[in-house]
């Protein structure tokens, strides 16, 4: 099976989407951020100049334009670059795109994809390091996809582009160097179906996007300590595969949620509440949440690492939940 970098998969799924449907247009130019991979998307732009729109620095205006274009019949994939910039466009994403199908009583749909790169990227400081998934999730009407590997990325985005709903495509620049197998004839992946990239019996770790990679890394180390971890990757937050989470917790009896949103009212809070509501009787230990600490993300590297969910923190939290002593 061919292998592919995550960044290559981003370009691959954009290419497939553009070539597969004349209505798909790309708006924005920082799908790969400012990373060294950014030039890869340039070839696609040069090949399909009529299918690309380079907007002014006006997130409110051009994301709103993407919504309007979707209403008129296009299927735009709109890039917001850094997740924090979506705040400029919140009035259009949260108050227009998310509401239009509902408040028109189903008359009008908004078939668009909005892409951003979230989370601590290293040196992004307070205004370039946000993870707004929880804020988006608190707004009914948005689908949210959070791929963690090249194959899922392609399959999920194919579904997002075909969807008649506004879909938030959440990427993380630290994923771009991840390599993974991608089947030749990859099919769209249906929304709302979690994957279990690692099976285990002692502890369930729920993680999405970049945190899946860190959780898998930690799980490998924990295995050598005798802790068997099952990792649940929801792949889409909206819709959420609640059953897969509950099934895993029923099996392991313990839950650690690792997420890059801030702790309060974050994705972790929602998952913890869901499990507490529906699977309290399965729990052998209190649920633990690991999230970005509730401070703005600082610039200085030691400060930044202090607030983000690192592999070391995942190890410590896992040992604590399972009752295994560190370094045993």
């Amino acid at each position, binding site marked *: 099976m061919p292998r592919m970098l995550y960044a290559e998969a981003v370009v691959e799924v954009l290419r497939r989407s553009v070539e597969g449907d004349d209505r798909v247009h790309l708006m924005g130019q920082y799908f790969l951020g400012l990373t060294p991979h950014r030039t890869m998307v340039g070839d696609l732009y040069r090949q399909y100049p009529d299918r690309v729109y380079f907007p002014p620095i006006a997130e409110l205006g051009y994301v*709103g334009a993407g919504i309007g274009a979707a209403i008129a019949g296009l299927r735009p994939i709109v890039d917001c670059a850094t997740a924090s910039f979506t705040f400029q466009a919140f009035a259009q994403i949260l108050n227009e795109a998310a509401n*239009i199908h509902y*408040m028109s*009583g189903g008359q009008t749909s908004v078939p668009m994809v909005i892409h951003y790169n979230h989370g601590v990227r290293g040196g992004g400081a307070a205004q370039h390091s946000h993870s707004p998934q929880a804020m988006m999730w608190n707004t009914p009407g948005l689908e949210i996809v959070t791929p963690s590997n090249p194959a899922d990325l392609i399959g999920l985005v194919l579904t997002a582009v075909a969807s*008649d709903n506004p879909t938030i495509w959440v990427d993380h620049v630290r994923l771009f160097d991840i390599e993974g197998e991608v089947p030749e004839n990859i099919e769209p992946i249906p929304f709302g179906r979690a994957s279990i990239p690692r099976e285990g019996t002692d502890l369930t770790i729920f993680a999405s996007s970049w945190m899946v990679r860190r959780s898998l890394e930690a799980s490998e180390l924990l295995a050598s300590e005798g802790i068997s971890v099952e990792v649940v990757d929801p792949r889409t937050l909206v819709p959420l595969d609640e059953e897969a989470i509950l099934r895993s917790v029923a099996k392991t009896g313990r839950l650690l949620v690792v997420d890059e949103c801030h702790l309060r009212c974050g994705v972790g809070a929602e998952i913890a509440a869901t499990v507490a509501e529906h699977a309290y009787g399965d729990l052998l230990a209190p649920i633990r949440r690991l999230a970005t600490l509730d401070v703005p993300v600082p610039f200085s590297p030691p400060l930044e690492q202090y607030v983000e969910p690192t592999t070391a923190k995942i190890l410590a939290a896992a040992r604590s939940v399972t009752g295994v002593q560190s370094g045993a």
Partner: protein
Amino acid sequence: MLPDLEPEALVVLLERMIVARRFEEELIELAGDRDIGHFHVYIGQESTGIPALSLLEQGDLSFTNHRNHGHLIARGAEPGPMYAEILGRATGYCRGKGGTLHLASAEHGFPTTSSVTSGCIPLAVGAGLGLQRLGSDRVSVCLVGDGALEEGAWHESANIAAMERLPVVFLCENNSLEALGQRAGEYPSSTMAASDLTELASVFGIESVAIDGLDTRAAHQTMTEAVHRARSGGGPTFIEARTVRWPGNRPIWPELATGKTDLSMAWDASLIRPEHAIWHREQDGLLGFVRELLDSGCVTSDAALGLDKRATERVREGLAFALDSPYPEPEEALEHVFAPRGD
């Protein structure tokens, strides 16, 4: 002056202007009897929106705002499902999900109505972008008030529309010229350093023109030119219609300050009472339009009264239909969050 149209077409405009007027007069009366929530009325702006929007064609898209009733009627929407929507009934255009604030009828070219000031501007510009890229000759019309130009969305979107020469017509109905605004306890008026709104568009190179909102010919002609420019690839146009704020529209909650419209005032000045004489003599675009039609011989006073009678009946039938309509089942609140998923 009258639009350059055949007499039959002018009568259609008159009929829609009367329907729009009677629709909202009935609504204000209804609001006196029962709590229907806050709403905004279009009374006083019919002479702009009706001639301007009536010339749009099937497939053209309009993005309106909180003051939308007249816009929908201009494009042929029916009083019944409009009232039903305003009253939250299952037979409303949006099945009761939108209300007056989000009144939209896709079949009449209103795909969604944002009542966030300026909310519709990026959407309308984007629809223009979509239509252009789809190779369509349809146009997108952005309907805003003066207040929307205070928002950053205007400046971002005007830039995009100008840069891409999009098929968009901005029709800005400025109803703040004589308004005292919130400092006087009235409905807010614009707070804007720019004294000429057209400059806010022309600075981007957008073709801009200001018209008298009472001049139906100007509304029809500038809109015809703007739509032609948009259809033929000539880019966006900004039209500022300088309208008069109806006295009943000054309070936060609309009221029939000038009474119900009496078309006879158009030909019998002795009916005009002194307290709102300026409104009835000079500022009511509907009465002005009737006077011009009488002068030109397009209609007689009897014909005007006949049109009014039929329009009033149609509006009242629409209201009765809405009041007889059921509310949606409560569980319908859970529907239409997402369009149906293919998977």
